[in-house]
């Protein structure tokens, strides 16, 4: 597209330049009067510019670019390293947390077991005590129970002998009274 446009410009130029060249006497570009001057100054200016650029300025720009690139790469590397380190630290931290959690659980479990054991022990002791007491009491009761008929018989004999003495004034043989009391108690039973 651009080529076409420049062609159009050239055609326009040719038309106009023909009209103009009549008054000014052709293109100044084709006048060889200052050609050597132009070549000479072109070589001097371009040459000096080229030498200064290639010797001093361009190497410096290239160096600047390289150093910037190197610095950026270095920074990226450092950032990567730090990221890795922080990842490591994070993992360590998580590990520590997990460990402490487990430890805490262990402590808790231990304490619980201990308490349960204590409670069990105390309960056992208590039960033992209670059982002992119960058995003692039962024994006593049994003793009392076992002793009571004899006592009753004795009392019964005594009272009956006393009664008889007072009623009829006769002293009865203890053995006969006991026989009778036994007889009665057997009947009531």
């Amino acid at each position, binding site marked *: 597209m*651009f080529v076409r446009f*420049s062609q159009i*410009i*050239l055609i*326009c*130029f040719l038309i*106009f*330049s023909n009209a*103009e*060249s009549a008054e*000014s006497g*052709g*293109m*100044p*570009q*084709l*006048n060889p*009067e*200052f*050609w*050597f*001057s*132009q*070549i*000479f*100054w*072109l*070589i001097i*200016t*371009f040459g*000096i*510019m*080229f030498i*200064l*650029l*290639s010797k*001093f*300025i*361009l190497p*410096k*720009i*290239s*160096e*600047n*670019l390289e*150093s*910037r690139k190197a*610095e950026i790469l270095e920074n990226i590397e450092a950032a990567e390293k730090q990221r890795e380190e922080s990842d490591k630290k994070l993992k360590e931290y998580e590990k520590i947390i997990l460990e402490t959690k487990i430890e805490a659980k262990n402590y808790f479990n231990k304490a619980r077991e201990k308490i349960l054991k204590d409670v069990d022990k105390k309960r056992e002791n208590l039960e033992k005590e209670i059982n002992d007491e119960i058995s003692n009491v039962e024994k006593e009761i049994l003793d009392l129970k076992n002793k009571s008929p004899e006592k009753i018989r004795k009392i019964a004999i005594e009272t009956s002998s006393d009664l008889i003495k007072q009623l009829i004034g006769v002293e009865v043989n203890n053995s006969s009274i006991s026989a009778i009391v036994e007889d009665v108690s057997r009947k009531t039973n």
Partner: protein
Amino acid sequence: MYQFNVYRIGPEIKLGEVDLSFTNASLFMVISSLAVLIIFNLGSKKNSLIPNKIQLLAELSYTFVSKMINDTAGSKAKPYFSFIFSLFMFVLFCNMFGMIPYAFTVTSHIIVTFVLAAFIFFGVTIIGFIKHGFGYLKLFVPSGVPVVLLPLIVVIEVISYLSRPVSLSVRLFANMMAGHTMMKVFGGFVISLGIVGGWLPLGFSVALTGLEILVAFLQAYVFAILTCIYLNDALNLHH
């Protein structure tokens, strides 16, 4: 065509029969190269990690040209970087300074562009012969061409090779001259049509100024990239 006139500034310098006087063309060559040197010197002076504006400009130009060379001529063209960079910057600044009203456009003279193009042509040819010896002549013999057509093709290739400096120099010179002439013509229309009809050519003139700035950049770019392509032919023989 007054804007293309070359006239002497200061005393006449003669070397034997040859006139080497300092002219307005020389003045603008000096201005352009000085501007390039000043801008790039400022741009390379301070090396900060985050570049300031002028440093950014210098570094962007550097990477732009180095990428252009790398893309078209490959990594073998690295030693010629500073030459192509200088060439691009010189042509660009000459073109751009030509856009200032009353300024002289150095590149609108065929002799200037032709000297540059001829230097490139001879340089590239010499590089080609140094790198490949007489094998460089294989450039004129494309592979895969029927033997019958070969003489014709070789002749065409030789002509096209020899016409490189002409096409390179005429392209730049004609573009610059045509653009400036067009602007002058439209400017003349503004005056001759007066306050009533002069607005249309004035608008054209404004639009053309924008276009010419684009052309100034584009022609410098084309000049540099064609140099790269010629260099590519000399460095990497593809045919």
